[in-house]
């Protein structure tokens, strides 16, 4: 994202990139243009982890803030998620409120704020009592509530789950890639959901471009769903079948093993699988269940996301490539670099 911003920055524009770790800051600083100043900070700390002078200097000059810092692990504990995603957002909002030249505060949220809602989710909607699958979803929901209540020119960008590049290149492995690895190894007997549940995943480049477009064309008070949408997502049963087909073509020897794709089951059966693993003391399957239970149950709450605002602002660039057109490349990446998937 920083690279994209730097590449498209106008003359005279500067980018301050707040990075948590010193090594990360050094790495980021080495990659980008002289328009970028990488600062080592922490949104959970006073002054965002900067010196007061630096904080004040940056605050005085910024015109746009892109808040995309946060904890993204589905398995994050509540306290951890609260500290980073909620309290961290509160501190960034405090920074933004004190920025006299601020024209746009773009908050990167997630479509997961819809939690256990089902049906069509409008961009204008947030509040609900449906509950959440994990602490990550809950913390991002609360963070978005803070942003919407803030008296600043905010925009909210709800991203679907990033899965890698549309060419198949995966730079950051997440729970979805690890689930694919479990399917490849034949270690995931059941997944919760419905055959017809739409799986909405998006490529990194598409997401970054949409974020940039929103940041540039900022319309305060709007929320944007940056996702595949119903027509570009894949049904869960088709995703599993497509995964198996790709694995067979990538690893012909896999076919000889006759590994069966997981069965799609209801919530009670999925939880019974986990409970049984614990009951018999099978540590292996307890770990498999734990790897899946923080995010897969989202598949029990079928939903599709309206993208009217996004399309109106971004046009055709707001239309994601069909997941089915590149899912095979992502799966092939997962298989070819299994060491990454085991993290």
């Amino acid at each position, binding site marked *: 994202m920083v690279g994209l911003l730097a590449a498209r920055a106008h003359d005279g524009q500067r980018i301050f990139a707040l990075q948590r770790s010193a090594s990360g800051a050094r790495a980021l600083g080495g990659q980008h243009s002289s328009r970028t100043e990488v600062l080592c900070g922490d949104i959970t700390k006073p002054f965002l982890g900067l010196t007061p002078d630096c904080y004040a200097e940056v605050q005085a000059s910024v015109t746009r803030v892109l808040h995309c810092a946060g904890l993204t692990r589905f398995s994050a504990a509540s306290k951890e998620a609260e500290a980073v995603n909620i309290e961290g957002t509160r501190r960034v909002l405090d920074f933004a409120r004190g920025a006299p030249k601020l024209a746009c505060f773009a908050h990167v949220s997630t479509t997961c704020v819809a939690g256990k809602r089902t049906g069509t989710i409008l961009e204008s909607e947030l509040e609900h009592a449906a509950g959440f699958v994990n602490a990550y979803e809950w913390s991002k929901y609360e963070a978005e509530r803070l942003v919407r209540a803030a008296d600043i020119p905010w925009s909210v960008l709800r991203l679907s789950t990033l899965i890698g590049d549309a060419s198949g290149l995966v730079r950051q492995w997440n729970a979805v890639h690890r689930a694919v690895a479990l399917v490849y190894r*034949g*270690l995931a007997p059941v997944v919760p959901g419905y055959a017809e549940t739409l799986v909405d995943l998006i490529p990194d480049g598409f997401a970054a471009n949409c974020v940039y477009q929103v940041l540039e064309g900022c319309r305060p008070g709007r929320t944007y769903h940056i996702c595949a949408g119903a027509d570009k997502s894949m049904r869960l049963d088709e995703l599993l079948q497509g995964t198996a087909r790709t694995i067979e073509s990538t690893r012909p020897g896999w076919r000889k093993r006759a590994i*069966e794709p*997981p069965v799609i089951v209801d919530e009670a*059966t999925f939880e019974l699988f986990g409970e049984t693993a614990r009951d018999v003391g099978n540590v292996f399957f307890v770990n498999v269940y734990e790897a899946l239970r923080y995010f897969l149950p989202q598949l029990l709450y079928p939903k599709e996301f309206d993208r009217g605002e996004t399309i109106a602002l971004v046009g055709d660039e707001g239309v994601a490539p069909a997941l089915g057109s590149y899912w095979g490349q992502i799966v092939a990446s997962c298989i070819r670099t299994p060491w990454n998937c085991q993290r």
Partner: protein
Amino acid sequence: MSIQELGEHKLLESQPATLERLGFGSVHVADETEDVVEMSSRAAVDALADAGVASDEVGALIYATAIAPSGLAGPTDDAACGGEQLPGLFRYAATRLQHELGLTSASVLGVNQQGCASLFGAVRVARALLTAEPALSHVLCVSADRLPRNAAREVVYNALSDGACAVVVSRQSAGNRILDCCQVTKGYYWDGVALRNELLASYFPTACRVIKSALERAGLGLADVDWLIPHNTSARGWEILAGALPFPLDRIYTANIARKGHCIAADNLINLRDMEADGLIQSGQKLLLFNFGFGANWSTLVLER
């Protein structure tokens, strides 16, 4: 022996309380003097009587076993081949059974290498024989397995019983009609010990596919099945599989799991017999029998009463 007693005698891998939570209560341990031929002979006599078939009308005897020692005749200790003279290794239980039962017209063959699914394998072969040999009218399928004395009595969270069963497969019969009979082998899991978790993971999705495929071939769906007659693996495992199919748990006969344990290859026929005795089976009902053989075979029989 109760599960607790098995635990006290260190014949289990899991804690007794774990197996009890999974649905097991007790297992049948054959008397020391009882060998597989005696066990299978008793079952066979009953089966022939039920079918109204005389011994000399049986054209073939198929003897199915899950474990290697069950294939040899003689006292159990002699099944340890290390102490045998070479000719002794050819003392087949099936041949002896043919003699004991007076099956004077029956050729003999054995089915093994299928674990607990071996009896279904025998029925499949019987059906094929009847199709291929018009002169054949009745095939007697018998299964018996008796674990060696002091053998552990648990395989992958399942408590094992010694047991035997028999069924007559006939060209014409007033009993159950075979609508479909199938077996899927996954050789990758040949070493169920080394690939135990992979095999466990494969069990449920493969079972679902095999069951649905069998029903489809028989022109049926899950909704058409009146009873699912299981092998007596854990009740918990059946809860999960019932959810995965999905199939109503109250139409899966699990009553024998606690009181009889997993009788290796004999579960389904023992369960069917007990269901008949309890008046649970009605004429015209569709029965789905499912079995899994460690080693690794998934097997189904679809019957119409």
